[in-house]
């Protein structure tokens, strides 16, 4: 499961650190203690930044780095589509062999395909993605209120 891509992201995380954001969330995986604090900043429906701090296993840390890579700069609708595909891959119990079309969408994130065979680790891979989803909901909520 430890693809080089994953190890690279783990050792050299992209976009790590907390910067300004519209909303901040803190997510914990109680069974293994993985933690992430994550902020999102939107410009309209465009994701300006995803910044984060966390501790945990290589899978959860690398996944946050990949998330940052993939979603920053994207439009919300596009990002949700990517998130949907990643979720599907992670819940596939190793049954999905990513094809070119999927690789086009998920880029480095296809490296997590092998993780989906390990139920105990799927939650690690999804931690930052769930945090992003939650933070986004809060940011939109806030915007709706102030609008």
């Amino acid at each position, binding site marked *: 499961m430890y693809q080089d891509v994953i190890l690279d992201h783990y050792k050299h995380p992209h976009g790590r650190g907390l910067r300004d954001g519209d909303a901040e969330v803190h997510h*914990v995986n*109680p*069974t*293994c203690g993985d933690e992430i604090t994550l902020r999102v900043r939107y410009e309209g429906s465009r994701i300006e930044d995803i910044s984060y701090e966390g501790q945990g296993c290589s899978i959860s840390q690398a996944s946050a780095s990949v998330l940052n890579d993939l979603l920053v700069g994207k439009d919300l609708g596009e990002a949700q589509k990517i998130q949907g595909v990643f979720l599907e891959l992670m819940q596939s119990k190793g049954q999905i062999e990513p094809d070119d079309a999927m690789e086009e969408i998920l880029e480095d994130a296809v490296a997590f395909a092998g993780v989906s065979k*390990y*139920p*105990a*680790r799927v939650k690690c891979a999804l931690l930052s993605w769930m945090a992003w989803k939650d933070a986004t909901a809060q940011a939109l909520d806030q915007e709706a209120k102030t609008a």
Partner: protein
Amino acid sequence: MTTARQGLTGLLDTEAIRKDFPILERELHDGKKLVYLDNAATSQTPRQVIDTLSEYYEQHNANVHRGVHVLAEEATALYEGARDKVAEFINAPSRNEVIFTKNASEALNLVANMLGWADEPYRVDHETEVVITEMEHHSNIVPWQLLSQRTGAKLKWFGLTDDGRLDLSNLDEIITEKTKIVSFVLVSNILGTVNPVEAIVRRAQEVGALVLVDASQAAPHMVLDVQALQADFVAFTGHKMCGPTGIGVLWGRQELLEDLPPFLGGGEMIETVSMHSSTYAPAPHKFEAGTPPIAQAVGLGAAVDYLSSVGMDRIAQHEHALTEYAVRQLQSVPGLRIIGPTTAEDRGAAISFTLGDIHPHDVGQVLDEQGIAVRVGHHCARPVCLRYGIPATTRASFYLYSSPAEVDALVEGLEHVRNFFG
């Protein structure tokens, strides 16, 4: 005898089925073939289940959940896979509604305890009432007596008619606005009666009471569809349905399982623990403290596969035909009185009876000498014996491997008992 058996339809090929059950080969008392008619106490275990257990310990044994090594993942997949199988077997809307317990008794106690510690609107306290029936197994009486002693709640019950059925004539007086829960048996283990769930559920829903169905004698013998039952909880036990000992099931509606407090505390049932406080995992884990009966759940999964491969509807048909035959043949034995319904209508395959004034212990013992295993006593349903003014009964109970020839053996055996003590 052969003529009496004519016209029996819907029987299974018991000769083939019996090959799956090693114990049925046993000979007792110098060569008497075992005639096992004590299935309401416990069923026998097919080779498929025994092998599954051995394979579990020989190949996959590990503690479940949270493990990152191969064995832990295999054991977890097997254990959670068993939950899927059971969920499907009872047509549960969600696998998360299936809680593994050690037996039906723990499942019943679990509900009684949850309700004692619950918040409104579920809380059972001194201003509320709990309803059971006079034909309950002790495991569905004593937990409610304890709850009632400990909370002050009033315990009420439905009585029985002379022919062994629930007396629902006072349905509206027994189940009232004060009733928090109605807990009753789907099929009586002593009388064989199949109870009218719908009438009781309807009244319970009218007053907002929860319904717990004790399906210990139903799950092994008929199609059990928890959605069709419309109950809130259903309990049953593995060892009566071809499964191992040490495993039972509580099914409960998801919203309830979310709202109700835990019962036992410990590993597996928590989300996060500090010395000052803890939060609980979502159901079903919230109700499964400690290392669960892993191999036993896996074994129950294999039992459910086995039963499904035969077909629960076909098993029910088989037992119905056999019961029809048995009540008829038994009533031909002079002095024999069936305690419970005397026809096969709305009736399970457990038949209790008395034989003149020969004590059931003597009946059972003399039958045993002929290799015929029946149960004698009050069958953990002493209020039923009190109700019918008898100290005990003899009970013969059938299962998918029981044959008309075994009914004949029983009848012949009883003739011998009569002569012996005559």
